[in-house]
């Protein structure tokens, strides 16, 4: 019988999902939070820096945040900033500190107007570290999950589409991978290759694809029997076209959900690694290493643990809630 005759509203599938997604206000708030976080990470140099964003010196405009102008070569910028000569105009970022700038005059300062989130044991501004640390967290999350999704989709598609011994091989491989305790595997690998942000991304990505692969394989098995896929085969379409044009787009929605959860997981793994000292080098601020350094001041400087801790907490919660709302949105059983 004719289904859907009650609902002839015209929309793309993505628009349909969005409409469903919007129904959850909390999810939308989380999505906005995630978007702001991404913007902060991208724009970190413009948000927390000890150099001016824009300045006019000796009659020429420059952006010292990005590149030291030629006119300033040999000039002590910090000296200049404290005593600007006439005709000099400067626009400072909202947080006037770099994560690496030590201010030994205010060590372990509690949150104040000058340092909204206080300073750490070396006099570094916590807000600046938090802003720059988001770069590490988010890039590790996104890139690692990107790698995981790429591997998972590829293997899952191939296994589900061709079946037979290929499917058996891939499925057994997935099962073997799942049997490893992932976190200790990552620790072991990092002990060999050395901790750098790139190695972390790759290691998390290479160990985290199994869920996506299983998901895509299942979707593929289901879709392979669908009539539109049969119709494509009947019109002589090659396997690659059937996979990429017909099966993949129709199995992307659940992958997106799993990616959202995956990012949350990867951020947590990165924070844990940094906390244990296997993460990014200490010169690069990250939320995990901030927490790790905060340990020794736990009893006297609450802000050092609370601020990066809640940053991790809220970010992971936001990604998880977005993923959950997405999962509900693509579930046709919940659609009204």
């Amino acid at each position, binding site marked *: *019988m*004719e*289904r859907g*005759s*009650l*609902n*002839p*509203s015209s929309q793309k599938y993505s628009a349909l999902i969005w*409409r469903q997604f919007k129904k959850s206000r909390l999810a939308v708030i989380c999505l906005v939070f995630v978007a702001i976080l991404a913007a902060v990470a991208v724009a970190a140099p413009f948000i927390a820096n000890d150099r001016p964003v824009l300045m006019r010196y000796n009659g020429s405009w420059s952006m010292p945040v990005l590149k030291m102008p030629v006119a300033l070569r040999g000039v002590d910028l910090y000296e200049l900033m404290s005593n600007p000569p006439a005709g000099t105009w400067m626009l400072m970022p909202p947080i006037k500190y770099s994560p690496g700038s030590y201010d030994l005059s205010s060590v372990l300062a509690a949150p104040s107007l000058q340092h909204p989130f206080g300073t750490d044991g070396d006099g570094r501004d916590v807000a600046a570290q938090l802003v720059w640390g988001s770069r590490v967290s988010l890039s590790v999350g996104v890139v690692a999950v990107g790698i995981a999704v790429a591997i998972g989709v590829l293997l899952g598609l191939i296994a589900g589409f061709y079946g037979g011994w290929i499917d058996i091989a891939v499925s057994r491989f997935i099962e073997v991978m799942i049997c490893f305790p992932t976190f200790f595997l990552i620790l072991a690998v990092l002990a060999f290759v050395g901790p750098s942000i790139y190695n972390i991304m790759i290691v998390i990505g290479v160990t985290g694809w199994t869920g996506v692969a299983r998901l895509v394989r299942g979707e593929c098995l289901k879709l392979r029997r669908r009539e539109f896929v049969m119709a494509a085969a009947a019109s002589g379409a090659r396997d690659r076209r059937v996979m990429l044009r017909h099966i993949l787009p129709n199995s992307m929605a659940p992958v997106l959900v799993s990616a959202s959860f995956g990012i949350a997981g990867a951020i947590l793994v990165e924070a844990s690694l940094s906390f244990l000292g296997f993460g990014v080098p200490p010169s690069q601020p990250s939320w995990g290493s901030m927490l790790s350094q905060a340990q020794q001041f736990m009893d006297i400087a609450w802000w050092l643990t609370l601020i990066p801790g809640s940053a991790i907490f809220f970010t992971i919660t936001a990604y998880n809630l977005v993923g959950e709302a997405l999962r509900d949105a693509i579930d046709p059983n919940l659609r*009204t």
Partner: protein
Amino acid sequence: MPLLSVEHLTTHLFTDSGVVRAVDGVSFSLDRGEALGIVGESGCGKSMTALSLMRLVPEPPGRIVGGRVLFQLTATGGPVDLLMLSNEQMRKVRGKRLAMIFQEPMTSLNPVFTIGDQIAEAIKLHEGGSRRQVQSRVVDMLSLVGIPTPAQRANDYPHQLSGGMRQRVMIAMALSCRPEILLADEPTTALDVTIQAQILDLLRRLQAEFGMSLVLVTHDLGVVAEVAQRVIVMYAGKIVEQGTVDQIFRQPLHPYTQGLLKAIPPLAKLPPGTRFATIPGTVPDLAHLPRGCAFADRCPKVRENCRENEVPDDPCNVGRLVRCFYASNP
């Protein structure tokens, strides 16, 4: 006095694209022992009407927003409005007085219990009795619906049975408490024709045997012609024509009924070049119904006033419900 009389039953679905008037002021009555057919195409509101009678409308998005369903619950007292009963009272009516079977017998049965257990459950719920009594009732019911070796079959799980057998089990379960009314929502649509013939025969036989009233909801006019005594034709949430089976099939007066009957290919080879009769156009969007007659856009007899005025029950005074200003023989 009719056993059941439905007055201005109105059920809406509150969806994103607007309020869908799934059942839009439906009134009819059902006598004791009568077989009533409700026919129409998908989206006409026939299933939603049956679900509304059972108060099983999925909520949300649906809600019964108006009307009365008067059921002669006791022989002496006045009729009771089912829509006014508490959930607890309604639960007691459901199954005991008013039972329903659905199109898909597989999904209507619980796969993890044997069919015997499921029928026993229905009996215990409403009538109770000792284990022995219940068990013998179960076997009686299964043999009544024509299941061979019922005592052994009672221990089968739903997946061990064929589609036709499952529908028989559903019927056995529905009839286990001897309800006065059986609502059958497309009971044979998922079945093959030879099995459909068996199930229709069974329904007819049981209806006569039990003196039960039957409401048969279907899209298949052939099925209605075989089983029903009175027929309701629905379109876009409204009853467009109502009459005895002879009136509907021999003198259809509404253009929609006429179109539907013509659209059924006869069981005979037509002369070459004959076109299949159709009703042009599609069912209107129930969330944005046009003013006037909902069938106007597809109607061959449409005139100006059809699109402007609400059509009353019997504007042509033919003596039965024919919702058309220009009701006439084809």
